[in-house]
Every structure is written in C-alpha cells, then in structure tokens.
C-alpha cells in the first residue's frame, strides 16, 4: 500500500480512510501500553496528526502508513509516561483503581467497576507483548492471522502466546476471586 498525498481534498479523504482502517489498531496498541482508554485515544489521534504533518512537510511517501502509524503510536505511548509524570507527579491522574475518574460510576455499577479494576490490574502485571495480543484479540475481535499481521509475528506464535496469556490471567483472576463481571 502506498500513501501519496495529492491535492487538499483527496488528501483529507485518504487521511480519513486511513483513520477508519487503522485508527482502532493504533488505539489498541496505545491502550495495551497504558490501559487507559482516554490516553490511548489521545495518542492515536496524535499519531494521525503526525501523519498529516508528515504529508504537509512534503516528506517522502510512506510505503506502509499502517506500520508508520503503529510505530509512531508506540513511541508516543512511551513518551506519554514522561509527560504524565512531568504534569501530574508519579501517577496519571485520570486513573483511580482502574476506574476512569472522569466518568463517576453510579452505585449500582460499582461491582462491575471493581471487576474491571481487578482485570485491569491483572492485565498490568502481564508483559506488554501479551497485553498487545489480548487487546487486539478482545477489543477488536482480531483472529490470530490479523494479530500476527499487526505485530509482525507469525500466527502460530500468536496462538501460543494468547493461550499462555489467557491461562496466566485466569490463574491471577481466580486467586483474586474475580471470575465474572456482574
């Protein structure tokens, strides 16, 4: 796939098409890094804006904009740690025990929120590569072949790592007493 920016409107159309095609993947990888949906969305949008600026600057054509976007998103996700630390101290402020503080949960959602918090903290203990797999598998419903394509690994490895990650997760959730979401 070749990305070549022509005049203004076709370029915007191509930009939107790329966003529609790959935006969720970019979000998923950013989410897997921080387990924070809002931050992941910010990172995904910033990655796409950088693609636009890249076009505007008249830089060389991107042979594989998807790979470029995923790489930029990963770098941005790493930088996010530093910026969040600089702005807010040691912990990102929008997260409180895995529940996004911007969306206060009503009382009847508390059990669900607690279950999510337990899953989230368990996911955080997994290696980042496993979180990538799980996020692509469960947030985007990707099969092993699609995950392999995004991550640049082979499908057999995806199967093995997914199975292992699921098993590890099940053990931890069992130990915590979380086996279902209310």
């Amino acid at each position, binding site marked *: 796939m070749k990305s070549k920016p022509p005049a203004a409107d076709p370029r915007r159309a191509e930009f939107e098409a790329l966003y529609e095609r790959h935006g969720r993947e970019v979000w998923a990888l950013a989410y897997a890094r921080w387990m924070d949906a809002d931050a992941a969305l910010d990172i995904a949008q910033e990655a796409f804006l950088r693609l*636009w600026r890249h076009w505007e600057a008249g830089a060389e054509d991107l042979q594989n904009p998807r790979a470029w976007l995923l790489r930029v998103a990963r770098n941005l996700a790493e930088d996010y740690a530093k910026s969040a630390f600089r702005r807010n101290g040691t912990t990102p402020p929008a997260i409180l025990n895995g529940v996004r503080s911007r969306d206060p949960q009503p009382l009847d959602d508390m059990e669900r929120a607690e279950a999510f918090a337990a899953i989230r903290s368990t996911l955080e203990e997994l290696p980042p590569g496993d979180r990538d797999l799980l996020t692509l598998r469960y947030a985007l419903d990707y099969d092993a072949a699609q995950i392999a394509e995004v991550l640049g690994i082979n499908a057999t490895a995806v199967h093995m790592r997914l199975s292992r990650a699921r098993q590890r997760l099940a053990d931890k959730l069992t130990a915590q007493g979380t086996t279902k979401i209310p």
Partner: protein
Amino acid sequence: MTNHPSDEQVDRLLGDYFKAQFPKPWPGAPRTDRVQPSVARTADPAARSRWALAASVAVLVGGCWYLSGPFDGGKGRKGVGLEGGSADSKAVLKALAEPKTESKVGMP
C-alpha cells in the same frame, strides 16, 4: 473457594472488559485544518512583514522629500529661495549709488 474459570469464561470476561474500554462511538478523524499550513506560509512566512517594512520606508522617504520642497522643479518655494536677489540688479545698484549713502557697499 473459587473455581478456576473455563476458557469460555475468560473469553467472556476479557471480551466484556475490552469492549467496555473501547471508545463508543468511535470518534472521527482528528481535524487537520489547525495544522494545515497555507501555501503562502510555506512559500515565505516573512513576506508580509517585508512588504510592510518596505511600504513604511517608502512613505518615510517620500515624506522627507516632499517637505524639503523639490516638487516645484528644484527652484524652491516663493519667498524662501534667493529669487530676484542677484547682485547685478539695476534697482539695487541705483539705490546703492545715491549720494546719501556713504557706505562703500557695492563699490568696486
């Protein structure tokens, strides 16, 4: 004691969790008009300033030139220059030659 969840239960747990985290509705592509530089900006961002500076200098020079009075052909304005003030004017010489004037002004 808690039972170990089956694969299906783990699938359902993770599915519910990640689906809940996923932004709904998925937002549109970010706006690019804020970051789209115009053609003029890419050509020369200081062109406007340069034109303003050139116009200011032109007005200043033109103003000075006008005030110094060169617009009447270089002769200056009436009553200001040395017009009619040449030393060989007959009227002046006659006045100087009258006897009541004792000074030697104008005599060779």
